[in-house]
């Protein structure tokens, strides 16, 4: 029996990567969720129901720029939202991706024509380059950035570039490009739980918890 690069990428490598991804994500979430929350001995400024619901509400309200800072942070946030939407569209609405996810979850959904996805990919790729440009040109963001930020950007970009090359049959045979694309996805899955890509799971709970703590102290956000 022969195992070619594509067979390896979508077989053993994908299996190992998914195992690390699933176990890693649960590990990271459980490790935080099961930590003991230090008891706040101060008297709450509002009822438990109120500060908890304010925490949940903050997931929405804190997801938009504060009116006072729109001019300063609006463009950055628009950039962030745009490429995230692009990524989601590519991941969830491209036919072969639907087929891949469908094979895991047992159901599929309608997708978009390949041409539309190619257009979205081109825009998303440009925005992604814009994000990097902003990171290296903004002194503050550059100082806040470390290897994790750049490597997380790199693995996501790698998936997009190899995916576009696969769709367009650029540079090599289709099966080689597809294998490289799946291997890049494998790399992303392995890196995901251990880098800043974990924000996909942390962002909303952390926003809610922080806001609830502040609301309890009488500083609703």
């Amino acid at each position, binding site marked *: 029996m022969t195992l070619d690069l594509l067979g390896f990428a979508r077989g053993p490598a994908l299996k190992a990567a998914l195992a690390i991804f699933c176990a890693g*994500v649960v590990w990271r979430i*459980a490790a935080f969720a*099961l930590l003991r929350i230090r008891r706040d001995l101060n008297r709450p400024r509002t009822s438990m129901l109120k500060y908890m619901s304010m925490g949940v509400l903050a997931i929405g309200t804190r997801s938009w720029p504060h009116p006072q800072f729109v001019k300063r942070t609006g463009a950055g946030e628009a950039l962030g939202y745009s490429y995230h939407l692009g990524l989601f569209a590519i991941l969830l609405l491209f036919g072969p991706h639907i*087929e*891949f996810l469908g094979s895991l979850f*047992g159901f599929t959904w309608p997708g978009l024509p390949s041409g539309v996805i190619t257009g979205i990919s081109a825009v998303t790729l440009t925005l992604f380059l814009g994000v990097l440009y902003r990171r290296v040109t903004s002194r503050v963001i550059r100082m806040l950035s470390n290897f994790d930020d750049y490597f997380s950007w790199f693995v996501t970009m790698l998936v997009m570039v190899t995916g576009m090359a696969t769709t367009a049959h650029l540079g090599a045979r289709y099966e080689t490009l*597809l294998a490289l694309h799946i291997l890049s996805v494998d790399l992303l899955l392995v890196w995901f739980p251990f880098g800043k890509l974990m924000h996909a799971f942390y962002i909303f709970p952390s926003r809610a918890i922080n806001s609830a703590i502040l609301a309890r102290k009488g500083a609703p956000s």
Partner: protein
Amino acid sequence: MSASGPGLTVGEMLRKHGVSRRGFIKYCTATASALALPPWMGAAMAEQLRNAPRPSVVYLSFQECTGCFEAFTRSFSPTIEHLMFDIISLDYDDTLMAASGTAAESALASVMKEHFGRYVLIVDGSIPTGASGAYCTSGGRSAEVILREAAKGAAVILAVGTCSAFGGIPFADPNPTGAWPVSAIVGDRPIINVSGCPPIPEVITGTLLQYVTTGSLPDLDENRRPRAFYGNSIHDRCYRRPFYDEGKFAKTFDDEGARNGWCLYELGCKGPTTYNACATVKWNGGTSFPIESGHGCIGCSEPGFWDKGSFYTAQAAADFTKSGETRPLEVLEFAGATLTVGAVLGAGSAGVGRLRQHRSELDEVAQNDKGTP
């Protein structure tokens, strides 16, 4: 076996059959076009063929189903009769020849001796090496012995069919006969792989004709297949490709998409990773090909095609379960196992974290106590 002695040149043979020079050049130009050769090759082929002696061809069949030979005999352009009577001298073929037993074996020995270093060897079927080659023998000799012997004097070897090119179905896991492709047995002769299960008839005869007329190996891909026929994927040349680009897929073999002729990708079509001329040359004289008949490509011209999972699973689908195709229950088992490992690791980490929290709190209390008068 040959219609007349191999001493005559092709040109002499054609004149004998009343073929005009103009008709011959037109034929060569059409053949060059079918082989995707440059336009000037038509005249060059005609010149070469006219003066060339008809090459001797030996056809050996080993561990195979004779499907490839059946395909070979159904070539429309050039036809097998035309090849055999006018272009080549088919001196040994155990399926077609009238002779049998010792007479056939001595015919093979005599051809190999007379045309040593010049004959074209066509091999059909894989070569079983298990049980000392006992799975496939002829005249008391194993396929491997016969092949090694015949390969010594061959100018070129055409491995016809996926079995001889890549091992094919006999080579598939668990390969009970220890089958191997020709290239694994013969390492010192030029080999052209003409893969397919079976190969397209015109691809077999076209490749043979190209070698005979040009006297050199065609441009080959990394799997030693002629690029003229295997240069493009089925997917790239498929008439259903526009539906793939539009995202229109048949979901079952009898749904509206299938009736409308939409792309068969989701039904497991292997067209994107299969290189062959099915979508252009087609079968039965250009009548149709599997995708046109409503079934996805099974990738039969690719190495290891039998071991690449289900023919009905989309290529984009994950392929890591024991069954060879992804099944929800196996995915659930996999997810359950990995999530449990993650939860245990997480609980362990949280336990360590809690211990640290506790120690840190104790330190804090101790420091506060020190500071209290």
